[in-house]
Each structure stands twice: as C-alpha cells, then as structure tokens.
C-alpha cells in the first residue's frame, strides 16, 4: 500500500514537472524572440514594454486557458469513460458540444453578438450545452433510475441532430456569419477576456477537487453497477452527480474555446496505460497531462509555420492521433 502511494506521488511529481516545463517553454517561444536572460528583468521592470505585453498579455492567457480547458476535458473524459465503462466515450460524444455549437450558431445568425457584445457568445454556448444536458437527463431517467446505456445512445443521437441543425443554419446564413460559425467550431485558445479565463481556470480546478469525492465510487463502478451497489455505493446519486459534473466541465470548456477534439478521448487512455486503472491517481494525472498536452499543442500550432497560426484542433488530432496509434500497435495495450 505504501509503495503504491509513493509511486503515485512520484507520478504526480513527474506530471507537474512536465506541465511546468511545457508552460515555460510555451512562454518563451513565439514569433518574437525574447532572450531568456531578459525575461527576469522584464518581469520586474518591463511593464509597458512590447515584450512584457507579448509575454503576459498574449502568451500567458493562452497557457492558462490551455491548462484549464485541457484539464477539464481530460477530467470529463475520465469520468465519462468510467461512468459508461466504455473507452470510446469522450466529452463530445454526448452531444454537449453540439448543443453549445448550436447555441453559438443561433447567436451569430440572430446577430445577438453585435447587439449584446462578444461575451454573449460563450453565454449562448453554455445555455445550449445546459439545454442538451437537461434533455438528456430527463429523457434517460426512468422510474427513478438513470439508464446509462440509453443516456449514451440518446447523447449520440442528440449530437447528430445538433450537427445537422448547425449545417442547416450554415446553409441559410450569410457569408459573413458563416465565417464566424466556422471559426468557432474550429476551436481556439485565444480569449480576449481575462475574467473569463480566470473563471474557467477556477471552474476546472474546482471540478478536479469535486471529482475526488467520487474516486472510490468510480473505482467501484468500474466493476459494474450491481457490484458497486453491493460495495455500499449510492449508485443512483453517484451516476447523476458524475454525469452533471462531466457535462458542466465540457459545457464550460466548449463554450469558451470551441470544439477542440481528441484531448478528452486520448489523454485518459494514455494515463490508464501509464498509471493504472485506479481513479485515485487517474483523475489527477489525466488532468495534469491533459493540461500539458493542450498547452504543448497550442504552442506548436502558433509556432510551427510562423507567422501563420493553425487551429489548435489540427495539432491535437494529428499529433495525439498518431502517437496514440503508435502506442497501441507497439504495446498492445488493453483498451
């Protein structure tokens, strides 16, 4: 038991180190070259200079947002995969991202963003996500029991319906609005509003803390619902709270950063392979590595073909996908 805990502490240490290294790396690379020596003097005396602005107004917000979104999506992925006992489920499977995208599309074509300001976009996205969560939740509860399999199927269907509705909206919208929708769907870690960034960072960390209330329950659930019940877990309440937690994390992430694929699907797999199935370590390690992975991908996306920037989803998909296939084919890991 003790050796297990020591192993876990080492893992967390390694992942925190990895996250820090990536964040520092990300802070130092970009189209403007800022020598390492200069940075320390910049931090204390450089306020107002261009370099200071580049570091703390452009690069830092993206790193923080990458941390929050990457962490939240991976955490949601772990929770959902544990809840459904299905490794193909990811935060976007349940149509929550579709709902958010639909909310944003409606906002754009009704031109609410012009009248109510740019902040109305994440608000509408979040309302769309909440709407889908409510529909899913109320449809899947039968006789007081949350039917997990029906929830999954219904989620997949809702996701299809909303993507079709988005296509419908896109095909009848004006060219100018069309671009807004496409950009949003591509996903981006660029966020001008500092308070939104702070909010999502705290939500994501709160999500991590909250998820730890369920680490034992998740472990028990991985044996099956009935077994969990026999182990003394209040299965019904646990299922509902976990579903709501994961959905809210996804909803917040999607409404701020758009749809950034792959993080929530692949990171939990990697981590299960590395640290084991126990949710006590899986939750925190997925959060940390998801955060690091997204920051790394965003750094690559904005530096790989300077001065151009790529959508971050391009990198998460290509990089994550190929590493993932490589590992599976090499190690024959159990999914």
């Amino acid at each position: 038991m003790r050796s297990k805990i020591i192993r876990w502490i080492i893992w967390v240490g390694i992942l925190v180190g990895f996250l820090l290294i990536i964040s520092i790396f990300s802070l130092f690379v970009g189209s403007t070259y800022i020598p390492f020596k200069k940075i320390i003097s910049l931090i204390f005396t450089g306020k107002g200079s261009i370099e200071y602005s580049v570091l703390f107004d452009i690069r830092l917000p993206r790193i923080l947002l990458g941390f929050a979104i990457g962490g939240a999506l991976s955490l949601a992925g772990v929770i959902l995969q544990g809840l459904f006992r299905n490794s193909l489920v990811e935060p976007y499977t349940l149509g929550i991202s579709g709902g958010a995208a639909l909310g944003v599309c409606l906002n754009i074509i009704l031109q609410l963003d012009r009248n109510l300001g740019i902040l109305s976009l994440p608000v509408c996205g979040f309302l769309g996500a909440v709407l889908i969560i409510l529909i899913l939740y109320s449809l899947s509860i039968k006789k007081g029991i949350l039917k997990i399999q029906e929830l999954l199927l219904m989620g997949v269907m809702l996701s299809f319906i909303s993507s079709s509705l988005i296509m419908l909206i896109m095909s009848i919208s004006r060219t100018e609005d069309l671009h807004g929708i496409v950009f949003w769907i591509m996903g981006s870690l660029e966020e001008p509003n500092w308070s939104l960034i702070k909010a999502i960072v705290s939500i994501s960390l709160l999500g991590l803390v909250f998820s730890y209330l369920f680490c034992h329950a998740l472990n028990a659930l991985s044996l099956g619902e009935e077994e969990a019940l026999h182990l003394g877990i209040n299965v019904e309440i646990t299922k509902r709270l976990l579903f709501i937690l994961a959905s809210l994390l996804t909803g917040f992430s999607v409404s701020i950063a758009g749809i950034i694929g792959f993080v929530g699907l692949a990171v939990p797999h990697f981590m299960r392979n590395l640290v084991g199935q126990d949710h006590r370590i899986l939750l925190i390690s997925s959060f940390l590595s998801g955060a690091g992975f997204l920051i790394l991908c965003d750094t690559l996306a904005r530096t790989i073909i300077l001065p151009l920037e790529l959508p971050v989803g391009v990198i998460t998909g290509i990089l994550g996908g190929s590493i993932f296939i490589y590992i599976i084919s090499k190690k024959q890991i159990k999914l």
Partner: protein
Amino acid sequence: MKRYIILSILSLIILFGNFKFTLSSSFLQRIISLGPYITEEIYLLGAQDKLVGCTIYCQRPSEAQKKEKVGTVIQINIEKILTLKPDLVIATSLTQKKDIEKLKNLGIRVIKFSSPKNFFEICSQFLELGKILGKYGLAKKIVQEVKDKVLEIKRKTKNLAKVKVFVEVGTNPLFTITKDSFLNDFIEFSGGINIAKDAKTGIYSREAVLKENPDVIIIATMGIIADKEKIIWGKYKNLEAVKNNRIYIMDAYKLCSPTPVSFLETLEELVKILHK
C-alpha cells in the same frame, strides 16, 4: 451680426477640423492591413511606406509580397502584430471577432472594413481609407475618374439587349452571388441580368440554373475545378450558354478583390464578354 457669428463659427469648425485631420493622419505612420484589397488600395494611394505588415494573401501588387507577413486573412498572429507596433490595424469582415477584441485590449487601434456590398460602397470605403492615410485628394480623384468611366459604360450598355448571366463562385454546393454582393453590380452595369439576384443566399441549385437558362455562365477560377465545371455545364445541351459556347472562366482574384480600379478593369472585361 448674426451672420458674422455663424460665419466665424463655421470657419473655426473648418480650421479645427482640418487641424485635427492633419494631426491624426500624421500620427498614423505604421499601418497593418488584414485584407488583400485593402493592401492593394494602400498601394493605389501611394501610402505603401506606411504599410508595415499585411497577410500572406496580399499578393498584389508584387511589392506587397515583400512586406512583413502577419498571418492569413482569417488567422492572424497577434504577437507578430504587436511587435510591429502599429498605429492602426485595418481589419476585414473575415477577421475573427475575438482577435479584434484582443488587439483593442492591447491598446491597438482597429478599424473594420466590412466587405463592400456594391460599387457605391467600394468607392466610399476607398475614400475613407484615403482620409485615414491623409490621401483624401488622391482618393477622390481616383474615385471620380473611375465613376465617370463606369457611368459611361452604364450609359453605353443601357440600350443593348439584356443578357442573362449566371456567375459561379463556388462548387459543391453550387455557389453564386446575390444582390448583396458587389459582383452583382458587375453584371448589372455591363448590361446583364443576374439570374440569382433575388436568391436569399448564395447556395443555388443546378435545376434552377437550367430553368432560368442563362445566356452566359461565368466561372471564377477555382484551379482545375473550373475546367471540370465547364465540362459539367457542357452536358446540358439545352442551355443557351452551352449552345452558343458562352461559358467563361475568369480570374477569381480580379473578380473578387474590390478596389475601384480593379472594378473598372473587370467591368470593361465583362462588357466585352457579354456583348461580343
């Protein structure tokens, strides 16, 4: 007495206005353009020495290719823009709203030029740009010349037989232009009728094209696809345009980059195509 007071106030306003005007344009020494046609217009106005950055799509005139690049039209590199220390960034309707917001938060002045909906808007935008660059006189002169010539063309084509035109700017789905685009003015000024003028959006069906039976089909170049499209249209033997072999491929760059000067050039070309 009253008259004198009004006059002196007026002259003061003019004086002050002028003063403010020269002040603001002399402040603007470093400009970044985020749209190809805006870059082109800056060159037309001879203000290229103030242009410190543009997008990789800004290919015309060829000197613009040597300017510092700050990204594509849709995906800009904010860091790069900030380090170029611009006094003004001219955005287009293709620039992402979040990026504009971010630039403003960083204390950079941003002006957004929405894509012009007709010839009139092309001219008024050009004049506005002239004002910003402190080249209003030149802008006015260019616009006046172009307007005169355009009116001349309109007058000439007025009494010619109307030609029904279908303009294809995208395929899969078939995409055309409606009256909300300045491209519609090309057709109307050159004595044509845009069959898709009143369509709600640009998405158009082949069936509707067959029904409207245009005399001329114009395809904006989309690489090899344009030739393919020409072959596809060729299969509909009943179309007037096919019968008389009047399917033309035009340079999308010329067709879709709306400076007053390129508008006139393209219009002249189109008149030749429609009334030969």
